[in-house]
Every structure is written in structure tokens, then in C-alpha cells.
């Protein structure tokens, strides 16, 4: 038989038919083709809007939150390091604050893109918040809503004080500048002022520290049902049981191709698997003092919270995050459109945003 014929036969056997989800790629093209005008609005109903920008950060945030909320308290609970990550300089906004609905829990999550929590950076202003998310757990904890604030949003930022007590005047600016100029306290106040939602706790984490933390845990054991390959995230993981080091776990959390709304479910499942693996590992760690010490050293650099967010609260959060089904975690972005004065910036859709926040304020 002719070699090309043999090769064509092989090709036919290897071929797959396009799945229905290929349509998502068409939409991706249309999103680009029709320009920023449409990115957030026309393609999807305003309401169920999923995160199209910063998805990587979101996946990462979920993994980081998982580790912060799960691994840290398991260890702390056992060893009584309750205050280890609570930072007394992180304080709730003073003055009038939104009332919280009974039984709800709202946590502001700030992910930074530098080693902001590393002591040598702590005094400086180099840290920038990369991601701001509000994790909303309604009373009953049957579901969770994760609200993403696009970083290019131009919003009204209230006056506040830096951790050193320096006043920062009120202004209209990018939402992330609240953190960048005034620190975690200002971010806290800004989100409360913008959403009218009472934020109970704040968590700040450093993405670059995540990998180190996983390494300090000695890696996490995962069984992957299939290979995960994403050159962009520099991830090549074979199928099967394996121990992921920090880098690999980070990559796993931010893998891109499996995202998109067709497989959102998969992403959440992946993150939950990662959470589960982290818990297991953290529990084992409590029997190994040497590793535990390393882990705590990393954890202190890597996660910071308000002092009220103690291990018990974290554990409660972790449990509810772990038990809500994949379908019950809703990721929403504050509805936005291009800013009239600067098309590269975003303006919140006042009515849509209010509708979103009002829903969360109630329950």
C-alpha cells in the first residue's frame, strides 16, 4: 500500500468531529471583531455574565482562596496559631457602614501581583492589586456568589487612611487604586461604599507566593482524569496520579483551554479537587513539625487578613466553599461598559450593578 494512503487512513482514525462547543470560539472571534463595545454586553445576557477578562486571575484566586481558607486553618486549628495571619493594622472602615443581612458572610478578596506581603515590600508602594473579588455566602450557605470587579473600572473612591495614618482624599479613579494608594483598609472601605454590602472580612493574598506555599506543603497529590496541557500557562501534566509542586498547581489552577462557559463546570470541579487535595495535605502536615514550620513561615508572608478572620471563621468558609456544588458557585462580573471619556476604561452600568448588589444585600 502507498505510504500516503496509509497515512491518510491513520489521519481519518485520529480525527475528531468538531464539538458543539466550537461555537464558543466563534463568539470569541465576534467579541474581538466587534470591539470592546460589545465585549461585556451583547454577547451574553447582562445578568449571567461570566468573567471574560481576568479569568486566569479568577481561577487563581479560587485556588488561592482555597488554600487560604482551607489549608491554613486546618494547620492553625491544630496548633493554635489563630492570630498568625490576622494583621491588627487591617481594620474595618470607621464611621457609617452598610448593615449586613442576617447570617450572610461577605469576604473581600484582594490578590496582588507582586510579593506585596513579603516583608521587604510591605513598607513600599510597589504592590498592586491584580484581582478584587467579593465572595458572598448567603445565610444557609447553599450557594456562593463570587463577584469580580474589573480592574479597569473607574469608580468613586471614598477618602480613607493608609495603614500609616496618612489621609488619602476621595477621588474618581480606577478601582484598584484604592488598594494601590491606600492599602487594604481603603480597598475595604471602597467596596463597601460602592456596593452597599457589608464586608465582614478581608483576605489579601500574593499569587507569587502560592507556588511557594504549595511547595512548603510538600506538593499536593492529584489524580488527573486526563492530561492537562497548556503551553501558555506552561503546564504539561500527564493523566494519572501525581504530586504537583507549587508551579504545577498554580498552572493547574490557571489553565485556560478548559475554561469558557461550556466547561465552566469543569473548572469549578478542578478547583474543588485542588481544594480537597490541599486539605488532605494540610492534615498530614500537622504530624510533621519541620514541614509545618516551613509552611507557617510561607503562609505568614503569603496571606493577610483582618484579625477578626480567625481560624474558626476560615474553616466555616472553607467548609461552605467545599460543600456547595459546582453548579451553585456563581461567578459574576459587575456589569460594565466602556467609559465615555476613555474607551480603554470601564464604567459600571449603574442599573445593572445596583440590581446585582441589591440581590446580594438581601440574602
Amino acid at each position, binding site marked *: 500500500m502507498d505510504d500516503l494512503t496509509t497515512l491518510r487512513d491513520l*489521519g481519518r482514525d485520529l480525527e475528531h468531529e468538531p464539538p458543539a462547543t466550537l461555537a464558543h470560539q466563534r463568539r470569541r472571534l465576534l467579541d474581538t471583531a466587534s470591539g470592546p463595545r460589545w465585549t461585556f454586553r451583547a454577547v451574553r445576557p447582562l445578568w449571567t455574565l461570566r468573567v471574560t477578562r481576568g479569568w486566569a486571575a479568577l481561577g487563581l484566586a479560587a485556588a488561592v482562596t482555597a488554600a487560604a481558607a482551607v489549608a491554613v486553618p486546618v494547620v492553625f486549628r491544630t496548633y493554635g496559631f489563630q492570630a498568625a495571619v490576622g494583621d491588627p493594622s487591617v481594620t474595618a472602615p470607621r464611621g457609617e457602614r452598610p448593615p449586613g443581612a442576617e447570617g450572610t458572610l461577605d469576604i473581600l478578596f484582594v490578590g496582588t501581583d507582586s510579593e506585596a506581603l513579603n516583608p521587604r515590600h510591605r513598607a513600599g508602594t510597589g504592590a498592586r492589586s491584580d484581582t478584587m473579588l467579593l465572595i458572598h455566602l448567603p445565610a444557609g450557605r447553599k450557594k456562593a456568589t463570587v463577584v469580580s470587579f474589573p480592574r479597569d473600572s473607574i469608580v468613586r473612591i471614598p477618602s480613607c487612611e493608609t495603614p500609616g495614618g496618612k489621609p488619602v482624599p476621595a477621588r474618581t479613579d480606577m478601582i484598584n487604586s484604592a488598594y494601590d494608594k491606600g492599602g487594604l483598609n481603603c480597598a475595604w472601605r471602597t467596596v463597601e461604599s460602592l456596593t452597599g454590602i457589608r464586608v465582614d472580612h478581608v483576605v489579601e493574598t500574593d499569587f507569587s507566593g502560592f507556588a511557594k506555599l504549595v511547595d512548603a506543603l510538600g506538593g499536593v497529590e492529584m489524580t488527573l482524569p486526563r492530561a492537562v496541557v497548556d503551553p501558555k500557562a506552561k503546564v504539561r501534566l500527564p493523566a494519572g496520579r501525581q504530586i504537583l509542586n507549587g508551579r504545577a498547581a498554580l498552572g493547574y489552577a490557571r489553565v485556560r*483551554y478548559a475554561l469558557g462557559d461550556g466547561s465552566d463546570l469543569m473548572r469549578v470541579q478542578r478547583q474543588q479537587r485542588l481544594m480537597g487535595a490541599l486539605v488532605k495535605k494540610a492534615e498530614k502536615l500537622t504530624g510533621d513539625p519541620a514541614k509545618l514550620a516551613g509552611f507557617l513561615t510561607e503562609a505568614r508572608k503569603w496571606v493577610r487578613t483582618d484579625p477578626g478572620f480567625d481560624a474558626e471563621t476560615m474553616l466555616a468558609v472553607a467548609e461552605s466553599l467545599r460543600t456547595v456544588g459546582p453548579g451553585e458557585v456563581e461567578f459574576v462580573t459587575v456589569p460594565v461598559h466602556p467609559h465615555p471619556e476613555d474607551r480603554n476604561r470601564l464604567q459600571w452600568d449603574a442599573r445593572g450593578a445596583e440590581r446585582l448588589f441589591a440581590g446580594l444585600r438581601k440574602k
Partner: protein
Amino acid sequence: MVPAMTAPPTVRSLDSDLVRESLTRPEAFSALFDRYAAMLYRYVSRRLGPEIAEDLVGETFLVAFARRKSYDLACEDARPWLFGIVTRLVSRHRRTEAARYRSLLRTAPEDVVESPADRVAAGVTAQASRPALARALAGIAARDRDVLLLVAWSDLSYEEVARALDIPVGTVRSRLNRARRKLRAALGDTNPLREEA
């Protein structure tokens, strides 16, 4: 067939017209997606598997869209252009591709052992030669493999492959010959049926 004949004649616009139109009306570009996305998906699924194919096809069209201003409007058929972009994107996944072919080494022989009596059937011959073919594919230089697989799996002519890869037709021929020599050597070495033929 009859309904197609009695349906009002529709004039299919040329790919180049669509690209031209997309310069002023970007949404028009999506018509190219409708025409070729499935075809490109099938091609990529052969080389890299279905896990990567979907995203890579999406990326292909984003790249194409971004470069549409430099499209040669004299080329009525956009396939060579799109396959050229696909080929460059596939080349970023070289290890995945090699691993995909190598995985055939492990799975194929079992199929053959199950029905030794049918070995003479052409289909089984292809099965039997598969490990050798897979090994050869994984071992062919990337540039040569790009040409070989465009010719064998995409139905492009030599001239179109040349345009896709932006190389002279003579180079297409020489790369194809080199790749096929390797294929034949691999098949001849390990497939006794071929020697009988």
C-alpha cells in the same frame, strides 16, 4: 439533490471578498469561521487531539482576524492562509504532537493480534503498519512533517501548501520527498506485507 437544484441560485462570495468586507465591517469575518472552523478543527484534532483543537482553532481565527489587513486579496481561497496560521500554532505544541503519535505505538499492536486471520485485508494492513508509521511521524523533522501532513491531511495542492508556509513550490516537493522516504523506510522495515506487495 433535487431541492438543491431547484433552490434559488446562491452566489457564494469569495473568501477574499469576505476579508475585504471585514476591513470595514469586522463582523463579516465570522463568515470565514463558519466556512472553515470545522475543517481546521478536524485537521488539528488529527495532529494534536481534541483537547487542544478547539482552543487552537479559536486562536487561529483571532490571529487571522488581526492580520486580515495583510491578506493578499488576489487569493480567492483563504484556506492556504488559514492552514499556514494553523501550522504555526501547531508547531508550538510539538511535544504534544510527538506524544500523540508515540501513544499509537502502545495501542495499535493489540488490535492486530485480535484478528490475525484478517491480516490481508487492507484496513488491517494499515493497522499493522501503524506503529511504524507513528514512530516515523514522530521522528520526521518538524518542517518536513508540516508539509507532509498538509499534503496528506488537508487536501491542499503543492502550490497552496507553498503559499501556506510561504516557501517555494520546489521546497514543498523536496520536503515532501524527504518525509515520504522516511515513511517508506519505516513501513518497509517493519511491515512484511508491504514487501510482498
